[in-house]
């Protein structure tokens, strides 16, 4: 897992954003290190999705910057975003196209992604047998997995997932969690995952940040809070932090 001295893979510096006079992100400073599975926690409406939209260049900050591998998203968007794969909110695809065709469109936009790579990522997420079906026939869980396949296509070092288990049934949640852990350990991919589901994140993440009213309350490594008996409770930490 990541050390604190190296250049962060993802860093936000004094990120601030207001909508119609209401500050939704307030001086947000986040550091995600190479190898982290970072849990970005907060209740609904606290600014998680807005922060992720700014990290991926979909929303422009009023102040501050996002750096990916030390490259400013504002100054050199193309180079910075080439290291990132992301699902922002519900994964949306062209439902009149098949899963394979959707990925083929996206593969066109990243240099060096072959047809074999499309088949490979579909197999990784377990959609190989449904690749030729139209997306409109997919369940939400399948669309989430197609979203991960899309994010994996160009072999990014960092994958950003916005509430990846939202709307999934318990089996779907378990499969998604296993997939993330498998990709983190086998492919050495760094994950930044937003969620409000504390139990799901406790087993998944090595590092967390808690956001409330657009401000980062705490950013810490989970192991720093684990006792010798391994009796750490993310829920306890979360409620302590949000009471401050």
């Amino acid at each position, binding site marked *: 897992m990541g050390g604190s001295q190296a250049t962060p893979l993802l860093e936000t510096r004094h990120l601030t954003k207001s909508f119609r006079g209401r500050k939704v992100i307030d001086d947000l400073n986040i550091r995600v290190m190479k190898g982290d599975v970072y849990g970005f926690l907060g209740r609904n409406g606290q600014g998680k999705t807005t922060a992720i939209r700014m990290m991926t260049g979909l929303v422009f900050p009023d102040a501050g910057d996002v750096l990916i591998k030390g490259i400013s998203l504002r100054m050199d968007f193309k*180079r910075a975003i080439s290291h990132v794969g992301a699902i922002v909110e*519900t994964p*949306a*695809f062209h439902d009149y*196209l098949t899963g394979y065709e959707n990925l083929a469109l*996206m593969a066109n936009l990243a240099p060096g992604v072959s047809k074999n790579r499309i088949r490979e990522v579909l197999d990784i997420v377990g959609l190989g047998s449904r690749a030729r079906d139209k997306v409109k026939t997919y369940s939400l869980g399948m669309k989430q997995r197609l979203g991960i396949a899309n994010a994996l296509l160009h072999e990014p070092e960092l994958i950003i997932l916005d509430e990846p288990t939202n709307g999934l049934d318990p089996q779907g949640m378990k499969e998604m969690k296993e997939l993330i852990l498998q990709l983190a350990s086998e492919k050495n991919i760094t994950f930044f995952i937003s969620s409000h589901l504390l139990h799901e994140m406790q087993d998944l993440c090595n590092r967390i940040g808690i956001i409330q009213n657009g401000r980062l309350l705490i950013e810490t490594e989970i192991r720093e809070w684990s006792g010798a008996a391994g009796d750490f409770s993310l829920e306890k930490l979360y409620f302590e932090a949000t009471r401050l």
Partner: protein
Amino acid sequence: MMRLIGNELRKLFRTRKLYVFAAVMVVVLVLNLSGYKPGDPMVVWTFRHGQSVPLGTLDILAQFMIIFIPVYLGDSLANEYRRGTLKLPLLRPVRRSELLGAKLASLFVFIAIMTLFYIAAAYAVGTYYLGWGDGTEVAGRLIPSAEGIRLTLASAVLLAIPYMIYGLFVTAVAVLTGSMSVTIIGALVVTTLVRHLSLGWLESMAPYTLNDQMLSYHEAFIVDPDWNRALRQTGILALYAAVFALFAFRAFRKKDILH
């Protein structure tokens, strides 16, 4: 950029819009020509031969474009924004100006296909109901068929310019509103309003409206050549293009993608 354009074209050919629009054009042509009697004082058309139908009914093509272009762009921009699929390419190393440029390039292909299909369909339906005839009627003159076909195609190419600039206007509306219904209704309301005003108390402004250019831009070049008028109209179109393109690209470059 070429790959982005390729993606937009793949989507264009995979959706039903193109084929539905083509069918609508054929139906409207059939409905108009099946009861048409040359010389009828109640009808503005004067042509007597099938080969004159495409050139003589280019006003119908303009009416189609006024509706089809907002529907196409409303889906391609505003509806993709609402459905969340617009963010897919924006999460790749793609500049926003490149994506908008690709969407406009696919609009150009859309206009070209619709125009060529309309001309082909007008020749076919016109010949079916009126016969081919011994020449093409242009401004009261009868010219040889080959010359008539050349003039028809040249007119269509020239009219594609105001259609495209109307597309830029609709693009700006789609980017600013992010709503397919507002894009379609807004574009149609503005177009209708401008048309009514230019037929009424703002009649002197009519030659400067985009509506007028969409109906008659080709005439100054082909039907009744007048190079001063052609130059003035081209200047007007260039001004419209610059203003709408500036609005559309600036708005898209600064837009927060919230869906």
